[in-house]
């Protein structure tokens, strides 16, 4: 597995662990959610967006790489 795959996997782990932490905090605090829980929950959204941007960026990079490779092969 290459380094970019590790980065994407880390993003997913972060995205899944953030709400789990918030749920645990929510259970601990009782019925009234505080700012900390909301902050952890909001992290899920930012991490999801980062993961999607990561996937899109990786795909664009892969397409560009293949295009360059085929252009080089045509020249050679």
């Amino acid at each position, binding site marked *: 597995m290459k380094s970019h795959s590790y980065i*994407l*996997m880390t*993003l*997913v782990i972060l*995205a*899944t662990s953030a*709400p*789990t932490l918030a*749920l645990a905090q*929510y259970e601990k605090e009782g019925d009234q959610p505080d700012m900390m829980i909301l902050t952890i*929950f*909001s*992290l*899920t*959204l930012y991490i*999801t*967006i980062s*993961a*999607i941007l990561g*996937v*899109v960026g*990786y*795909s*664009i990079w*892969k*397409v560009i790489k*293949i*295009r360059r490779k085929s252009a080089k092969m045509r020249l050679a």
Partner: protein
Amino acid sequence: MQVFPTSPYLKISLLMALAFVPTLVYADDGRGSSVAATLGWLTIGCGMTANLSLVIFKMMKKTAVIKLVVGSNASQSLASAYQQVLNFHIMLNAVGFFAGMSHGFMLIRGLDYITLSLAIVITVSMISGIILKLTSGKNLKFFSRLVHGQAILAALLVTLVVLHVITRWHHGIIMHFI
């Protein structure tokens, strides 16, 4: 091995019938269950059926090619059935997507970060799927195939669905449904 009907009219009728699946949520079970919550369950059901069927079919195809157990007949029929399984996957996912969107709009007051993340992931998957199906450009097709087929995106989707159900459950919105 004949898995799907050969008549094109029957195939189209079966696929068209899938469009009426969401009407099932309006069936009254006498327990006061809400239509919006049922639409959510329907979305989960559609997504699971559509994606698991394609994954299982691909695994069967791979096994048949690797083992070469059944000879050319089964491999050929599996290859010809691929388009039909793909159509089923697209149709059921489209039904699930629109059911999910309706569910989201009906319960928009309860929007939270997890739900919004889930909606974004579903929309990205749907858009990449549509581009993959409709585009003829080589680069765009390759790009959409990469985005649509990312295992990471699928893992994120499953996790967010599970978390969405857990958090909604916790907030008591679907408690009366059980």
